[in-house]
């Protein structure tokens, strides 16, 4: 089936380049379906072992058996990029998917978030993650499964708790607080220090140890890796490996709507221009395209979520129509999903796409709420804030080594799930090796302290 697909590849690439796509070379590889499923579970073709992936794998398997999901391709950015195609794709599907992959490759080479992560983490994340996996396999050999697992339990639980505004390679805090500037007119002090035996005291006062952390620290993986009282070298390496992968995952997460929309826009466009395709393949591929970007609800139906393909594709079509391809490319370079949705999901578009906001009450009743564009956008983006995790920051290390975490409930609107919170603290305690507490609020809004 895949026989002829590769024959089309050079011609599709030629079309893409002519249309202005600008991408790193991509390695295509056809892999078994089972492997596709694993890529979807792990997020990377080779990744560190952890039992939690096993759980996700089973869910994926069940979903797959029930026919809810079918994966055509997965692309990894880099130079070269890697694209994995499901081996059982039909020829027409593979033609479409190839064009789609080129759209992704263009996106990941030009979008700022992606560029940054590739510069900082690696421009070959597939290899890089495989190295991490090997590193952890070695750690298991050396220190045993139990100990490595305890570290991974903690590190992967904090997977989303990084600070993407900071650099991947980040220095420790300065050891000493900056010296306070002396008041300009300081005659008394000057004369006082001129007294015999007072000369050195001045320097001693100026050098004051800075508190750790100097300000609330949201990059928990980094903070624990650097400041856990008795963390061993190999444990620290695991934390930093997980953190690096998180830096890679962030752009993928934060540009999903844009990225999938862009790739869909391009596979549709390249397909239209591909006059070399046999008629039947063209028709099949177009069918497949409309399956991918179709709204979840058509006609009288209603869906309680929105397909990112549909949303992204429709917005990009609109942008290209309005601002031309150059305008669209500027958006591609500079935006992420937040700015993309806020700037380009207009009232007309929301209406055209039949988007609505609804409310689910505790009783299970679902009601459609008033039209309000801002609220609609924010509800759509809500799950994406802060890498999809509650805002938690490290605020203090007490004298006895206890780590204080603070949950910013004012940002999130409500407190943490107590049971889960405690379990995470138990994971953390095993690597921090001192008590760990977190402050959040309960249902009534009163402050509560969870500890482990």
């Amino acid at each position, binding site marked *: 089936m*895949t026989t002829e697909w*590769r024959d089309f*590849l050079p011609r599709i690439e030629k079309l893409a380049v002519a249309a202005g796509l600008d991408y790193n070379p991509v390695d*295509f*590889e*056809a892999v*078994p379906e*089972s492997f596709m499923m*694993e890529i979807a579970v*792990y997020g990377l073709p080779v990744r560190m*072992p952890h*039992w*939690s*992936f*096993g*759980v996700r*794998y*089973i869910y994926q398997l*069940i*979903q797959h058996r029930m026919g809810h999901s079918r994966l055509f391709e997965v692309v990894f950015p880099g130079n070269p990029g890697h694209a994995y195609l499901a081996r059982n794709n039909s020829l027409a599907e593979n033609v479409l998917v190839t064009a789609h992959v080129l759209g992704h490759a263009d996106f990941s080479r030009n979008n700022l978030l992606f560029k940054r992560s590739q510069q900082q983490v690696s421009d070959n994340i597939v290899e890089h993650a495989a190295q991490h996996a090997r590193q952890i396999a070695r750690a298991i050999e050396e220190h045993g499964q139990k100990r490595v697992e305890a570290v991974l*339990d903690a590190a*992967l*639980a904090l997977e989303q*708790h990084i600070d993407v505004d900071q650099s991947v390679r980040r220095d420790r805090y300065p050891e000493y607080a900056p010296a306070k500037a002396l008041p300009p007119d300081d005659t008394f002090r000057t004369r006082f220090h001129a007294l015999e035996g007072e000369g050195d005291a001045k320097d001693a006062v100026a050098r004051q140890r800075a508190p750790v952390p100097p300000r609330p620290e949201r990059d928990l993986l980094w903070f624990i890796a650097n400041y856990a009282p008795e963390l061993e070298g190999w444990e620290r390496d695991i934390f930093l490996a997980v953190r690096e992968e998180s830096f890679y995952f962030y752009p993928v997460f934060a540009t999903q709507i844009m990225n999938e929309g862009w790739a869909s826009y391009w596979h549709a466009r390249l397909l239209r221009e591909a006059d070399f395709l046999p008629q039947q393949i063209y028709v099949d591929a177009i069918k497949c395209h409309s399956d991918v970007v179709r*709204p*979840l*609800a*058509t006609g*009288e139906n*209603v*869906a*309680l*979520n*929105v397909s990112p393909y*549909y949303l992204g594709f429709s917005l990009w079509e609109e942008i290209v129509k309005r601002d031309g391809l150059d305008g669209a490319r500027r958006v591609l370079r500079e935006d992420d999903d937040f700015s993309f949705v806020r700037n380009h999901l207009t009232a007309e578009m929301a209406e055209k796409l*039949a*988007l609505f*906001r*609804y409310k*689910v009450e*505790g009783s*299970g*009743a*679902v*009601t*459609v709420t008033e*039209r309000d564009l801002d*609220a609609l956008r924010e509800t759509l983006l809500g799950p994406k804030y802060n890498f999809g*995790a*509650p805002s*938690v920051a490290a605020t203090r290390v007490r004298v006895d080594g206890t780590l204080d975490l603070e949950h910013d409930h004012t940002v999130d609107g*409500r*407190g*943490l*799930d107590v049971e*889960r*919170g405690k*379990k*995470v603290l138990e*994971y953390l305690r095993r690597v921090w090796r001192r008590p760990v507490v977190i402050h959040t609020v309960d249902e009534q809004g009163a402050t509560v302290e969870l500890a482990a």
Partner: protein
Amino acid sequence: MDETDSQSDHPGSNPRINGWYELFSRGARDWLRHNEKVREAVREHLPEIIAGADVVGGGARTVRVPVRMLEHYHFRLRRPGERDGVGQGAAKPGDVLARPGQGQAPGKGAGGRDDGGLEFTLEFKVEDIVDWLWEEMQLPNLDARVGKAEEADWTREGWDKRGARSRLDRRRSLRESVKRRAIQGESPAFTDDDLRFRQLTKRDQPAIQAVVFLLLDVSGSMSERDRQLAKTFFFWAVQGLRRQYRHLDTVFVAHTTEAWEFNEQEFFQVSGSGGTVASTGLAKVREIVAERFSPARYNVYLFYASDGDNYTADRPQAETELTALAEVANYCGYLEVSATAERELGSETGTLFKSMTAAGKPVGSFALGRVEDVWAAVRHFFQHQAPQSEQP
């Protein structure tokens, strides 16, 4: 575009990139690791789980325990009383898309529970469980009382260059081949001289045989629940004995005012009516011992489950029978099952067994009121029984 050409017509057939995908599944590996963790967790709570589980089928070799998948915890916000979402389709403000109770919650798959937690079933081998438990509770291994009778059996002993193909020891043969090739250099991988076959010889071994009598009071006063308790206890007690004895016969006897022997299936379904005369049951056991299980060849165990309401008039008779049984048996255990079990074992039968224990006979008793205590009962009997059998 060289690469495209060199990759033949079927991209998957390229040996460079093919291979391990099919041989190795990381998902499956991590899933197995997850199951291992679940097993560990289950093991820690094993006594509670299996005592309560409906595991005691006839001759069950495995126990199926329903477990939930482990969750890898993350910080998460509390489940809100009310939440917002964005949907898509033909809906106007004010439309009600789902009414209370209408399960419209997305993400609930088949077999799913509250937050999408899946349940699945783990199977444990009964032997494994018994081994774990004995380890966990540090129960002693029993000493067999009789072992004089001899029994010829085949055992493995040594290797030979000739033998039946089915007894080829491949590891050994390979070792011989490696040794030979180290000396000879260039030579075929295997020659006939390398082959080693396991040899069998006939050896006399002491026969360790045992019989356990499960005596159940099925009189009208025994409720269904009482019998379920007794059944669970019997099951694990028998498993414990089986761990020790290669040949363990089980004999099922039920009694009311009379006693009958049953097979296993019927035994747990028997329900009688009328009063309780314990001596009939004990007499029946003694009769069977005399007929089929000579104490000279068998280790005899008796477990008797009853609610203890024996006829007072039966007391001397029951005492005689029990005394006679205690002479030949390794151990006699009495389990008093009753919803209102008092630890004092003040019932008629309870008093009888207590007095025997006090007289230094290999007899013990335990009052079982709740299914959670089944393990306490098993532990009680096995701990008491061991010292008894150490000094015959």
